[in-house]
């Protein structure tokens, strides 16, 4: 008996009756629901490597500067933080920039949940950075941990608030680097403020020493409000 003939006969012998509910079952078959942590975990690989690299680089530089006793480490880190914020803002527009918005709106997770997940991840990363950097700098170079944290945080928050606001505007939606420009302006402003005489109210250390916590709290509230608006309107902006 030839091989083909043998195979045909076996196939015929193993012919099973047609299943009755196949189409209905396959039509209703849905992938397993994924929880919040699973969703966040699943989105991590899609975040731009630049965001991870900047976060790790700033943390390493802060630790190295503190260990080596470089006096202005706090200033350098405060100047670098706006760029972390800019990358986070750009990440909210990533789907649109790569033409994935429409696809993500039609997939398993809504575009809104994808953007929310990415913002949450980057927010956690930034918070983690701050929790590492601020105590290291404060303990190594002298200073209060909270004041150091606020000094590092304020430039980041300024960039986030203005960056997210501009992302919602026509200029921001049509310009991929608007957030980077804001980060540059924010870092320049902080650098300018740092070098002012200590008797001037706007001098960064004087100002943050007196009003830093209140300013950070207000900026934090504004940032959450902007993030809320971005998440709620992301599908309209796409």
């Amino acid at each position, binding site marked *: *008996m030839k091989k083909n003939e*043998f*195979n045909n*006969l*076996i*196939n*015929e*012998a*193993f*012919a*099973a*009756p047609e*299943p*009755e*509910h*196949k189409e209905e*079952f*396959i039509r209703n*078959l*849905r*992938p*397993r629901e*994924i929880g919040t942590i699973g969703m966040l975990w699943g989105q991590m690989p899609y975040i731009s490597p630049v965001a991870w690299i900047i976060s790790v680089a700033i943390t390493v530089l802060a630790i190295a500067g503190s260990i080596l006793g470089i006096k202005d480490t706090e200033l350098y880190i405060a100047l670098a933080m706006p760029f972390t914020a800019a990358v986070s803002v750009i990440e909210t527009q990533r789907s649109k920039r790569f033409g994935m918005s429409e696809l993500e709106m039609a997939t398993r997770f809504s575009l809104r949940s994808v953007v929310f997940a990415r913002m949450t991840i980057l927010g956690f990363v930034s918070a983690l950075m701050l929790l590492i950097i601020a105590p290291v700098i404060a303990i190594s170079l002298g200073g209060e941990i909270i004041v150091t944290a606020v000094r590092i945080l304020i430039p980041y928050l300024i960039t986030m608030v203005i960056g997210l606001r501009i992302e919602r505007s026509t200029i921001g939606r049509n310009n991929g680097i608007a957030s980077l420009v804001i980060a540059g302006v924010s870092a320049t402003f902080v650098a300018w403020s740092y070098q002012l005489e200590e008797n001037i109210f706007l001098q960064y250390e004087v100002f943050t020493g007196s009003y830093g916590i209140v300013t950070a709290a207000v900026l934090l509230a504004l940032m959450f409000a902007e993030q809320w608006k971005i998440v709620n309107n992301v599908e309209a902006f796409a």
Partner: protein
Amino acid sequence: MDLEKTYDKIYRYVYFRVGDRMIAEDITQESFLRFIGKYGNFHDYEIKYLYTIARNLCIDEYRRIKPEPITEEIEDKAGMGGISEECIMVRQALDKLSEEDREIILLKHVNGENIATISKALGISRFALYRKIKNAEDRLRNELEVEE
């Protein structure tokens, strides 16, 4: 993974183990649901895990209630002109083989699975599987020669 094709393969595999259309369909669907429950989706995983789940469910079913032989149904179909005489001979020859031999022949020749999938589904090494395939095919050919 083509869900319809996969469904057919698993269903056929289960049907020839339990011998009942309804139970086979129940086990097939349960296998799919358990697969999704464990792996989330069908994109990243291979069919071999589905076979393993289906096989274990068949064993559970076999323990619960011994399946009825399926030859009657085949013969009824043959009586209605649905199956050729040669096919009945093959069927009878297959019935004389061990369950494992039938399983191997179904997976390889009917479902067209590769060696890696079959060895994983049966929980044996590839070398052992090559040997078992050859033995099963030889036994089937011998049975067919006797039938003729």
